[in-house]
């Protein structure tokens, strides 16, 4: 029996695979394709206190081995989430991670507080969304604000807190250290890299928001580098993501030092991507004769 269990901030996952926030809704739509019981955890779309309308369309554009999105965190608000999406998710034997967003610190805290007595296993705090005018990435690009928001969230949170970092920084290790100093229980990275695309015939940006966040295989080398840098820097566990589409991709992130991984954009090309990643990890471990996934986590750094 190969062990694929991992424990992150005291929460045990049956395997190290979750969904990247915003690419899997709250799991409902993908449940037609994927047995959610197979996933280590489901990470939800960003949830804010009030419902958010998001950005105007077009919200996405395809790029070479990647995509840009500027959804702008549209979501029905935490009440709908708690009353509709959470009961749905609780039908399944998987960990539930709620991705939290806000425009102000208070916004974040209100969501965290509302979720405090809910059956949520972990919170992921999105301080790295490049697609909203207020909040989002603004919190994630300076060490002071990263440390401060982490500390505040930790005061209110009953569940372990994962701080989600932005790759749009000079030195991601500094942000990781700031989050750790603020009391984060874990880190997740990377969110999207800010990019753009122009329609040369219309002479306008393809996205209504002008810029969007780049994700998919295109960003994988950058994501893997940052995950490795951060895993070497902090003591808290890291959830790695950015372009993971196969079991081999996931293994790269685990070897780089991630304790778990998330599958995002790949869900759009292949709705079974999450389970194929899980199977792929299993196959790799079996083929290489590795009995415990712990043996490969961070092995590149040893």
């Amino acid at each position, binding site marked *: 029996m190969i062990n694929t269990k991992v424990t992150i901030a005291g929460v045990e996952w049956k395997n190290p695979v979750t969904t990247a926030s*915003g*690419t*899997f*809704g709250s799991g*409902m*739509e*993908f449940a*037609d*394709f994927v047995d959610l019981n197979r996933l280590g955890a489901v990470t939800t*779309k960003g949830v804010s206190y009030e*419902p*958010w*309308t*998001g950005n105007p*369309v*077009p*919200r*996405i*554009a*395809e790029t*070479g*081995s*990647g*995509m840009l*999105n500027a*959804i702008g965190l*549209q*979501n*029905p*608000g935490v009440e*709908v989430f708690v009353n509709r999406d959470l009961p749905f998710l609780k039908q399944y034997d998987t960990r539930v991670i709620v991705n939290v967003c806000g425009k102000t610190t208070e916004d974040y805290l209100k969501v965290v507080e509302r979720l405090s007595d809910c059956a949520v296993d972990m919170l992921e705090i999105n301080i790295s969304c490049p697609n909203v005018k207020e909040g989002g990435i603004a919190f994630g690009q300076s060490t002071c604000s990263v440390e401060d928001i982490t500390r505040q969230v930790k005061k209110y949170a009953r569940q372990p807190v994962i701080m989600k970092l932005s790759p749009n920084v000079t030195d991601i290790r500094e942000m990781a250290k700031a989050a750790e100093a603020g009391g984060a229980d874990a880190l997740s990275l990377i969110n999207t890299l800010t990019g753009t695309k122009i329609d040369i015939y219309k002479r306008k940006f393809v996205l209504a928001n002008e810029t969007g966040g780049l994700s*998919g*295989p295109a960003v994988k080398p950058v994501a893997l580098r940052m995950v490795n840098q951060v895993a070497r820097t902090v003591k808290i566990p890291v959830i790695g993501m950015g372009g993971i589409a196969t079991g081999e991709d996931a293994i790269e992130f685990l070897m780089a030092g991630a304790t778990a991984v998330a599958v995002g*954009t790949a*869900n*759009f*090309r*292949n*709705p*079974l991507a999450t389970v194929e990643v899980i199977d792929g990890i299993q196959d790799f471990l079996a083929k290489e004769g590795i009995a415990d996934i712990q043996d490969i986590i961070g092995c590149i750094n040893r």
Partner: protein
Amino acid sequence: MAVQKKAQIISQVQLAPGIFSMWLKDLEIAGQAKPGQFLSLYCYSEDRLLPRPISICEIKEDGTSLRLVYRVAGKGTEEFSRLKEGDTIQVMGPLGNGFPETGAKAILIGGGIGIPPMLELAKSLDCEKSIVLGYRDITFLEKEFQPYGQVYLSTEDGSAGVKGNVIDAIRQNAVEGEVIYACGPTPMLRGVKAYAAEHGITAWLSLEERMACGIGACLACVCKTRNKDHHTNVNNTRICKEGPVFKAEEVEL
């Protein structure tokens, strides 16, 4: 329930410059498909991540196969156009809601590459109907509509039917109906919406937007709505899930 799978190509022909007709063999999808629904088509080239939404143009009566008619608009559709009989293509579907049956005397309006989905609708609607098809210049598929109702054409250059757009064709031919079904470019849909409002009739419009998931999970493909929709709890509904067909008065174009 929508499925994702590899489907086999039964045939592919070019109908007009850049317009292709492809028949796919698939019991599971064809067996449950309805007019106005669409498929997501996936590219072979690994650098093209996102599915291409293409409407269902025809469903074989015995539910064994379905037809797609599409225009080569970029690299993805160009790739599809090179596939041949016997090749396979990764598809997901059927997706979306499709057109509702109302029983009322209907005007079916298709504009450009919005024409294909009206064919299955024309076949399956069990009511009196007129069919209005608008083209820029070169026409396609119009003959296949003839068994199902009176067909009126418009072309921008006047080379066939009325010179002008579909609304011009409706007015000049005094086409009448109690309900409208339409698919086509947004400016056309705006015209249809205005026309329907003017005549106090219901119009069902099939909308388009860039999609990433095609199944309602990513919120890429929204359109502004008059009312808050039950799912999103804001005035921005998912075209791939709650649509692509909406009552004209419910949506902002």
